[in-house]
């Protein structure tokens, strides 16, 4: 099933997140990720939703979302040229021996070390899904103690 990225502008009011999340639950659609935050306009928030489904499902999702009172606009940006970012925080085991190697690796990925413990490091990274995946894979051999990542935010390139 193809993953679609939907950029949804909504009015910034209480209840809007539940209305949208509730819609997905009720109609049996699967949300892969959902990120929401304010936009340049204080009254408006933007949700970036990643939804898996065939054309029929995505069309229904879009139309049903559109019916929500707080939804202002929906854009399916799956096939647009976009800048995509996720954020990752990852705690890896790092004894003295491994530390140097990890630091070098992180240099290559241009990640930041944000916390140094006696036996572990916390690394912060942002990037598109591919990069985040690569970072996680490269750190796996050292022993991942804890991992948390956000969903994707996207922006269409250029003027539109």
């Amino acid at each position, binding site marked *: 099933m193809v993953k679609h990225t939907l950029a949804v502008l909504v009015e910034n009011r209480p209840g809007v997140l539940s209305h949208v999340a509730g819609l997905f639950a009720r109609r049996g659609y699967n949300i892969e990720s959902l990120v929401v935050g304010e936009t340049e306009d204080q009254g*408006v928030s933007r949700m970036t939703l990643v939804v898996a489904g065939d054309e029929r499902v995505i069309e229904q999702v879009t139309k049903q979302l*559109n019916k929500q*009172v707080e939804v202002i606009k929906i854009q399916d940006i799956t096939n647009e040229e976009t800048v995509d970012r996720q954020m990752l925080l990852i705690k890896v085991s790092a004894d003295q021996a491994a530390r140097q190697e990890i630091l070098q690796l992180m240099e290559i990925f241009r990640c930041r070390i944000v916390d140094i413990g006696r036996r572990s490091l916390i690394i912060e990274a942002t990037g598109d899904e591919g990069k985040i995946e690569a970072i996680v894979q490269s750190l796996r051999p050292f022993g991942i103690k804890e991992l948390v990542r956000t969903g994707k935010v996207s922006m269409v390139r250029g003027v539109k």
Partner: protein
Amino acid sequence: MNGAEYIVRFLEKKGVDLVFGYPGGAVLFLYDVLGRSSIQHILTRHEQGAIHAADGYARATGKTGVCLATSGPGATNLVTGIANANLDSVPILAITGQVGVESIGRDSFQEADIVGITMPITKHNYLVKELDNLPEALEEAWQVAREGRPGPVLMDIPKNVFTGTADFSEVVLSTRKHKIPFKNGLARQLGRITEVLKKAQKPLLFAGGGVVSAGAWEELEDFTKYTGIPVVTSLMGKGVIPEEEGGSLGMIGMHGKPAANLALSQCDVLLALGTRFSDRVTGNPQHFLADTCIIHVDIDPAELFKNVRVEFPVVSDAKKFLQMLLQVLREEKVSFALEPWLDQIKAWAKEYPLTFSQNSLLKPQAVMREVARQAVNQPIVVTDVGQHQMFVAQHYPVQGRRNFITSGGLGTMGFGLPAAMGAALGRPGETVILFTGDGGFQMTVQELAVMAEYQLPVKIFLINNSCLGMVRQWQELFFNGHYAHSLFTGGPDFIKLAEAYGVKAWQIRKPEETKEIVSKALQHTGPVVVECLVDAGENVLPMVPPGGKPSEMLGRWHGEAHISRLS
């Protein structure tokens, strides 16, 4: 002015003169103001009664139904009625009280998260936590309930918002950030649709409940007169066009009329207006009319392609669509030669009439036909849910506008009685005929008290088959006659029950008593219960088994005694 006063003033300004409700702690301040206002309040005997009554009122009048309930149990008692209105797209504003804002989230006395509970079954809902937001929320709620495809809206209002005061004189209602209207493609589609219709040999118009919501009766009549295209309806569309000779072919679907279902299965172009192609119509949606060109017109874009494949999707209300299409047809002087098709349909109607077997027992269908024969002045016909509902759909030709009220989408037993009450209150002076079953009647029977109190002209035909008829039928056909918990072994004396509420009651025991008692009941002023002791073994036929094709009807054909499949 306090919040409660603002709400009552708002309702008055919107022309609301009647609300249904049930008071309690969280709404006492609202009731205090309401009790001094010009608005009439009907104290139902259960909140479910209030919401179904508001629903019946809305369907019968075309106005928005308003109902009130207190927090917690009051609000949760509305849930079934809200879901019912949501599936049948009925405009309702439900106002519930909530515990004070400070107490929310502490499992306070009579606290229930009704906004959370009703989120999936309302068109929209609100928890108005601040008095300042009340004016805008009310205005928006009122609009949302009515605009586009109508539906129920719930507003949950904490106690302290009712009592808080503010100067509302300065309130400017900020307009909503309106979303870009959906491109309807109507103009672009009209030409192509005209071409398709011109070529059609066997066109069929399928009218759903959206035609009623749009108030497109005249347009539909003009259109069918001009084109001669035959019409079938869904349950919700029943009555949009008179159901006599030359009018609608009747209902299609699981219990549709044979000729209507045959026409559906054979048509080459289906013009579907204001319908959501429910599974009761389509059977298995994937195999629905594979060779037919489907034109689907609905005001809700989400309905297009939701259930069935469509060649021409159009986002429009039925009224506007029919006006514009007819204009194009007239301008282009398009004429239709549908005689062979219409003859074919007539032949089907003759070969496969809607019949029922006669024996010495009273048949529910016979009662309905007799009531229809005797009723004058186009009464409002209301049903509950079950076999009797389908018998009415098949055998009672409804006349007039907004005169058929039934729970279509949710199939809510207990809907009929309070809905009939709401319809009667919404259209004073008009007769309401309610057909209900002995099961559903007992689910909301308490509302007889209101019927008696207001002497509402509701003629209740209680089709008593001593069982949950529709369940019994499925068990007979699909569970080898294993009647698990569907046969009533005890029950009230319905005559005494009605009389206890102060409602006149008669009984029809034998077929030959029907004519006289129906006549007495219809002539009686005020509410009446007529208990009809009918053949408990009667089945609703024809029947398309779940998932089957429209033409695969089970029934008794060519006068045979046994049930067989038509094709």
